[in-house]
């Protein structure tokens, strides 16, 4: 179990807890249960937790599956720097957030699940894990040249095809024109 990144599971658990808090909160508020204001708190806390936990962190090894549309929240979560990167802080935060919801039966399930998530985050923090944002890769250019397996080694202007093709078998040895073209005078493109 040495290679398990506990933060990944803690993240799933915290996200689930957030949803449960929201649901319990809605039930308590809509039903005007006794002490329903804890339910209202629960909804707010649940929304906050869901937003915080939605962007998945990057795995240490291997590729990470992003959640759909997480890049917007990633940008926001990244802004808080060490507050969101450090899992000790997250563990404490979740523990504190869970306490008020524990006063109401409708939301106590959310409390229990959030406490468990907090414990797993604590374990992750002890093992030195951190939240790293998943960066956007630069968009791949369209693969227009994908089928070109042997791109031409000469820059333009290139001699006509027949002259190029003849020594193409020995292309490994060097380009037909004996290396890349070196322009004696710098050439500029004069497009109006």
């Amino acid at each position, binding site marked *: 179990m040495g290679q*398990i*990144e506990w933060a*990944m599971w803690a993240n*799933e658990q915290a996200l689930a807890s957030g949803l449960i808090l929201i649901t319990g909160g809605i*039930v308590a508020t809509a*039903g005007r249960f006794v002490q329903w204001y804890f339910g209202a708190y629960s909804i707010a806390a649940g929304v906050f937790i869901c937003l915080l936990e939605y962007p998945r962190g990057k*795995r240490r090894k291997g590729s990470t599956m992003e959640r759909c549309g997480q890049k917007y929240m990633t940008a926001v979560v990244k802004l808080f720097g060490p507050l969101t990167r450090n899992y000790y802080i997250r563990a404490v935060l979740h523990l504190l957030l869970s306490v008020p919801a524990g006063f109401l*039966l*409708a939301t106590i*399930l959310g409390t229990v699940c959030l406490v468990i998530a907090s414990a797993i985050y604590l374990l992750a923090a002890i093992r030195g894990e951190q939240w790293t944002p998943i960066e956007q890769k630069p968009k791949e250019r369209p693969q227009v040249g994908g089928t070109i397996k042997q791109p031409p080694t000469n820059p333009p202007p290139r001699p006509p095809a027949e002259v190029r093709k003849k020594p193409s078998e020995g292309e490994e040895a060097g380009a037909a024109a004996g290396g890349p073209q070196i322009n004696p005078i710098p050439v500029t493109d004069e497009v109006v």
Partner: protein
Amino acid sequence: MGNWLVNHWLLVLILVVWLGLNVFLFIYTFLTYEMSDKYYYTREILGTALAFARASALCLNCNSMLILIPVCRNLLSFLRGTCSFCSHTLRKPLDHNLTFHKLVAYMICIFTAIHIIAHLFNFEHYSRSQQAMDGSLASVLSTLSHPEKAGNSWLNPIQSPNTTVMYVAFTSIAGLTGVLITTVLILMVTSAMEFIRRNYFELFWYTHHLFIIYIICLGLHGLGGIVRAQTEESMSENHPHNCSESYQKWGTHESKCKHPHFEGHPPASWKWILAPIALYIFERILRFYRSKQKVVITKVVMHPSKVLELQMRKRGFSMEVGQYIFVNCPSISLLEWHPFTLTSAPEEDFFSIHVRAAGDWTENFIRAFEQQHSPMPRIEVDGPFGTVSEDVFQYEVAVLVGAGIGVTPFASILKSIWYKFQRADHKLKTQKAGHAAFNFDKATDILTGLKQKTFFGRPMWDNEFSAVATAHPKSVVGVFLCGPQTLAKSLRKCCHRYSSLDPRKVQFYFNKENF
């Protein structure tokens, strides 16, 4: 679409029957609790939430019964084997057992949510009517326990205005087991998410064994008899239709109506889950027994990019293409079983797996064999368990696409095709099979072992598909993928694009196998 339906009609039927069963059970129970007279007084306090809670409870019982059955993989394999004379369309549902297991799990989650929300309202209503001073029927009913406490014929579990719902929840068997069961369910679900399961299998494996707590709590959940109905005897003295209006006069000389008496139900969940539990215990005993059978390792090959091939033999082992086994290595971990696709063909006299280093257990496993200690570490094998690869042989032209370690099921298929061809097996329709293999290792090529890669970059699927379509203008082509979802999307698109509108011309059928 039509072709898919012909192949999958039994799956669709099973799904429809299962959904129909859930709908029927829910509605039937809902109407019972909503309309029946013996719950009239209970409904007076609780309202419709009672019916919702009970209906979802019955569906939960039913689904909890069903969820254990698809994971009895040895028994399913046995069923598969005894049905070998059935067409493979009939056996297909057995291969989708894990999908069904997940569907049932989702249904359990949905009904759990309904059940909990309904009971939250129930508790709240009980609490309110206990505290109500307005002399309504509900408050009269709530005070019923006081004279009759010895007779145990109360209706409202909240006996005093000072008792909070929280207190009742955590001091009643139903409440305590309810919180525990739901917590355990949530833990099982979060650790079973695809992302966690694929990357940290051991976490999923161990956490999922919390189902034992789930089953125990489910059996105990109904012990308190909190849901109460009016007794038959009481209905004759105090029928709701006659007596509900005159509740202020119950038990007095002016009225014939006595106070109503109530009784709780005995727990019913155990009746639903007893048989599957027995089946599952038998399944685990069977797995244990099979794992104790001796496995002889005949050959160990270390491939480049840290892939280990193990060739083994076991008495009585017989497999089909694309099946998988579970492997346990006691010297690495006593309790963990990891699944691997079989890469050998059924025609060979051994069976083999290719193991890639993907986590703790696999890395330790590979290291144990690399060190070449003698004797070799003992391993235990459970399986083989079925998948749907036989379809490959039904197509004239098959295109098999494997990514990374996803080439393994196709290794088995290709070898089998070769053997069948050699032995002129008439059942083999495949005349031509093309294989595209990806590998992600930067240094060497997994197929040829040379530094020069077999393919440079990703194939241009459009080119490949149009080449196949041109070469086989009148054939039915099966495209099989074992790889990532993104690849599945592009291949599916190409299949649609290159299938001719004329059904007599080339048709591409896409099959994604989840191994």
